[in-house]
């Protein structure tokens, strides 16, 4: 009897060994705790989990075993990675497909897998800690129950729309049922991240778990363990019927369901949402419209049509140039969040900013909450006080939105020192000056600062057009001088353009990039020259915009033409935002540097505007009149008279709406390509990222370089030649562009 029992034991051990051997599977594993299967995901090759082919294959295997295992009553799905549940589908898997049909097939496989999860006779609890996005969210909502940690890292969302796609594994069909039609549209059309507490309120997760502090293990490790314990208990309680899966609906919920049950109301919702999308996207982005269409198909024609529409539309979207462009930007952004210059010799712990204006205060705001002691120095009490208020307001707004507590705000601001003198500058590791754009002032400042700082301290200058080598000319240590061009408003604009001169040391660059990355910026590092990269691309476009105005197109029409091409902000509005005085200054400077190629509109138009006090939004008047508190704006009536004085006759052969658009865009693009040709740019990726994130180049086109690839260099050159014929050398295509036009195999991006 004993031997028999021993053999049974041995046999079982062998079987269980065979089935749970970790060497067989490296992405997904499971362990049975009492009668709950704990399925753990952990991509061994990455910091995040994605629904890659291997992950899916192993998941299916594990799921089959769990279903077949009689000792298992329920399951918990959890990630072993501290900051990530599943970050989404594997983009490369989609990009590897050549046809829409292939992508549709991928989608259908995903749909099938999640349908099995949804219909699983054994309840599955998704235990979410960290990002649960895209395909990860679709997986989670196919499970019977969701528990999430209240950690700041835990975010749920469907960001597919930002990649020009739609949730293609049942998301468009399940979300409306789960969070209601308006909530589902909001999630899928904006792609925004939803924090755990909000997700609970929306009905996206059932239960929340608090993140834990130090205990007998590290907080991260123990928090995952705790989440698992709670999820296991939930799984057991579902089996014991202590937790009911059908939730009692509140009165509001019932009322909403009733209203949305009326077809007329639903039609109205589709109409309103479509209207909003068209207004926002100008119809340039196909994904949001397809999302609406797909949701509609499911709700109006039943799930079969819905799932089919989802898979087919997913396939179609994956083949669009817009999706390709957006995915390109995503990859570019990831690349520009890395420091290719290595680790700096000493980290910047103390930083000083000169000038508490909009820029200076903005830089302070993005620095002070990153554990860097920040000095904000100005020469005037009023200016300093205004700047400090700006920083305070930035953080106070966050407390109002409850992203930080008032205590965190106070604690962050305790690292900010406002002062009028150079006290404490000897301890500073980096100085960023954001004083007035005047070479003499910058020289004065650099000399003053170098007298008080220690030898290792880096001097960064925030300028939008002055060549860094000219500024560095006043420095005793040009290897420590670098340009850091921030974009206004600093806390909102993601881009930072870092400019190095021939003399800037590699360590100085590494340090500047490290600071920029800490500040949360997407960074391009470019060579020195008038206007560097971004300003240099923008200037010809604005010069062309002035000419268009002079030719009698009114600002509203100009804005409509540019936004119609995909720019988020119209050219006239952009000029007002940048400041007419700045635009005039830049136009004049770059005009001197580059000559007639930067001509077009008359600089005097801008100068006269400045003289009359039309400096843009900051002065209340520019191309438009701004009334505080009012969102709508009217065209500045005085501008018309002014333009009348500088009126140019429009040549009808190059003045159609489309021609005007291409006149504006081709000058931008040509200058960008020239920057690559001259070595100002390190590569097309940085060029695209800089143009989109710094200047609002249409994201659906993916940036000037990708635009040349998709539109065709030859076609662009052809248009430019036509404009060149009328206007001259401002439209002469640069050599690199001509090379690409000649050889259609040449491409900037893959």
């Amino acid at each position: 009897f004993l031997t028999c029992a021993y053999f049974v034991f041995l046999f079982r051990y062998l079987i269980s060994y065979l089935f749970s051997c970790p060497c067989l599977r490296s992405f997904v594993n499971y362990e049975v705790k009492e009668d709950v299967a704990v399925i753990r995901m952990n991509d061994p090759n990455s910091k995040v989990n994605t629904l890659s082919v291997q992950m899916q294959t192993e998941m299916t295997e594990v799921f089959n075993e769990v279903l077949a295992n009689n000792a298992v009553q329920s399951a918990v799905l959890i990630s072993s990675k501290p900051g990530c549940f599943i970050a989404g589908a594997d983009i490369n898997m989609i990009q590897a497909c050549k046809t829409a049909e292939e992508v549709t097939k991928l989608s259908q496989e995903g749909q099938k897998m999640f349908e099995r999860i949804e219909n699983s006779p054994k309840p599955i609890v998704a235990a979410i800690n960290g990002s649960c996005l895209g395909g990860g969210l679709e997986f989670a909502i196919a499970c019977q129950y969701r528990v999430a940690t209240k950690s700041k890292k835990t975010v749920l969302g469907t960001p597919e729309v930002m990649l020009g796609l739609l949730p293609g594994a049942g998301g468009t069909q399940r979300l409306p049922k789960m969070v209601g039609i308006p909530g589902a549209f909001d999630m899928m059309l904006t792609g925004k991240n939803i924090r755990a507490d909000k997700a609970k309120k929306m009905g996206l997760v059932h239960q929340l778990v608090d993140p834990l502090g130090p205990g007998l293990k590290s907080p991260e490790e123990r928090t995952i363990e705790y989440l698992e314990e709670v999820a296991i208990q939930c799984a057991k309680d579902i089996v014991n019927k202590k937790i009911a899966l059908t939730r009692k609906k509140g009165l509001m919920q019932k009322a909403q369901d009733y209203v949305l049950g009326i077809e007329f109301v639903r039609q109205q919702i589709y109409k309103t949402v479509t209207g909003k999308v068209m207004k926002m996207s100008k119809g340039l982005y196909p994904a949001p419209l397809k999302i609406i269409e797909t949701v509609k198909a499911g709700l109006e024609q039943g799930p079969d049509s819905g799932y089919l529409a989802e898979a087919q539309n997913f396939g179609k979207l994956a083949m669009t140039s817009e999706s390709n462009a957006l995915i390109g930007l995503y990859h570019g952004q990831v690349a520009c969040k890395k420091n290719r210059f290595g680790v700096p010799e000493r980290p910047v712990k103390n930083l000083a900013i000169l000038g508490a204006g909009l820029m200076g205060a903005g830089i302070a705001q993005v620095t002070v909450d990153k554990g860097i002691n920040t000095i904000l120095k100005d020469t005037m009490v009023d200016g300093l006080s205004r700047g400090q208020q700006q920083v305070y307001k930035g953080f106070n707004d966050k407390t109002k939105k409850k992203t930080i507590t008032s205590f965190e705000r106070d604690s962050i601001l305790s690292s900010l020192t406002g002062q009028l003198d150079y006290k404490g500058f000897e301890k500073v590791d980096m100085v960023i000056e954001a004083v007035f754009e005047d070479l003499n002032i910058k020289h004065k400042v650099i000399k003053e600062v170098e007298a008080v700082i220690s030898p290792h301290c880096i001097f960064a200058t925030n300028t939008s057009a002055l060549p860094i080598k000219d500024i560095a000319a006043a420095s005793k240590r040009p290897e420590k001088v670098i340009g850091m061009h921030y974009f206004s408003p600093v806390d909102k604009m993601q881009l930072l353009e870092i400019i190095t001169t021939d003399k800037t040391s590699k360590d100085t660059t590494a340090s500047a990039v490290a600071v920029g990355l800490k500040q949360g910026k997407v960074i391009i590092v470019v060579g020195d020259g008038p206007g560097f990269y971004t300003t240099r691309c923008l200037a010809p476009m604005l010069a062309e915009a002035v000419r268009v105005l002079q030719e009698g197109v009114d600002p509203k029409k100009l804005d409509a033409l540019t936004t119609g091409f995909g720019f988020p902000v119209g050219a006239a509005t952009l000029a007002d935002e940048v400041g007419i005085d700045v635009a005039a200054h830049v136009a004049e400077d770059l005009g001197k540097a580059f000559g007639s190629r930067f001509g077009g509109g008359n600089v005097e138009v801008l100068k006269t505007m400045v003289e009359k006090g039309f400096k843009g939004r900051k002065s209340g008047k520019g191309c438009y009149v701004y009334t505080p508190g009012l969102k709508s704006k009217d065209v500045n009536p005085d501008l018309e008279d002014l333009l009348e004085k500088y009126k140019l006759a429009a040549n009808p052969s190059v003045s159609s709406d489309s021609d005007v658009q291409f006149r504006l865009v081709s000058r931008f693009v040509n200058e960008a390509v020239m920057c690559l040709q001259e070595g100002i740019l390190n590569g097309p990726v940085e060029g695209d990222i800089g143009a989109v994130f710094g200047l609002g180049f249409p994201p659906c086109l993916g940036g000037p370089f990708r635009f040349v690839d998709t539109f065709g260099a030859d076609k662009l050159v052809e248009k430019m030649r036509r404009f060149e014929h009328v206007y001259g050398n401002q439209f002469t295509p640069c050599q690199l562009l001509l090379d690409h036009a000649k050889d259609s195999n040449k491409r900037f991006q893959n």
Partner: protein
Amino acid sequence: MASMLMNPLRSCPPVNAAWAVQYATRSLSTSVHLHAQVQTKSKKTLAKPGVKNIVLVDGVRTPFLTSGTTYADLMPHDLARAALQGLLHRTSLPKDAVDYVIYGTVIQEVKTSNVAREASLGAGFSDKIPCHTVTMACISSNVAMTTGAGMIAAGQCDAIVAGGVEFMSDVPIRHSRKMRKTMLALNRAKTLGQRLSLIGSIRMAHLTPELPAVAEFSTAETMGHSADRLAAAFGVSRLEQDEFALRSHTLAKQAQDSGLLSDVISFKVPGRDMVSKDNGIRPSSMEQLAKLKPAFIKPHGTVTAANSSFLTDGASAVLIMSEEKALAMGYKPKAYLRDFVYVSQDPKDQLLLGPTYGTPKVLERAGLTMNDIDVFEFHEAFAGQIMANLKAMDSDWFAQTYMGRKTKVGTPPMEKFNLWGGSLSLGHPFGATGCRLVTTVAHRLQKEGGQYGLVAACAAGGQGHAMVIEAYPQ
């Protein structure tokens, strides 16, 4: 409890430390339990040359009552006054014989914000005695005592009354900030028109009151919630917490029944009956405790109403003197107050770990080891908090990662730990608990014949306190 059975045996107190060793050695043959007492101490006494000896002459407290019961109609200073009068009575102290009165309190009644002064005047102390009030959450009366000790050590005073009071039956509930602003503006309004327009500006939202919460200002987290997270972080189970809570209530009941809680004075509450016993001691069963639902983290939390300390009304008072003064006045002190420390940590994730951080620090300061301590009195805020602290003290990893120590602190043996109940069962009037802990250590040292005792407590704000107490040679 074995130790209690031994009490009669030890009730004839040793005359001096040397005698204590002899006495203990002699009993070695008769009792295995007493073996612990035989261990030679690291130090014979903690007296330091050139440093004044500070003694606890005596300590008393009002009965601790669940808030909203017999004390409901009083005010905080009434309770403090009762404790002071009790102390006067117990020590026969002349009403002008102390130099200073210090009280600790947490939730302040605005009318008596210096509650020490109001209580002292009301208790009949001379109006020439200055008084002040201190606050440091649950260790407020510890601060009152150590402040007094500091004044004596500095040679500024010879005799101090320290105490603490908390009155949770009535707390200041305020008008909303909007309403307060309007009312203050109304005060300054000059014309009828101005007044009417201000009154007219009052909306429903103005009438929402502001309630005080036992929550951290910095994190907005209630203490129970934090305790539940702490328990989870250290893997303290619901069962462990319920067991510890039951232990506390059982021991408190035994102590109460056998008359060990001699610091409690009787208090005739105006318009009500005479109160002479704590009323929150409720030994229950594990089954009963298991039935309760979590009070803070729902539905999966482990901290319940039964394994947390409850809202309590109560006051305490101690008489502290320099040794010479006490002897000159003919007192026989109960204990020496020796080294003490205050510690503080992260108020979010380590809110209640004060004892873990304070214990090794004060022991090192005193030159003692865990084995030297005969009596442990830790403040029991939550059963989960005590268990978490015990686990933290038992963890090398925690000591190395968070405390910068090479090895773990070590845990107090349970047979020396909170043997007469604790805050979970006796009650926890925030401001008054510290004096109860110190007095209890002194009394237990006398009863159990030990030499050194240790008080440790956690407090809101992520702070903590620990103090070493040495028995006064009898």
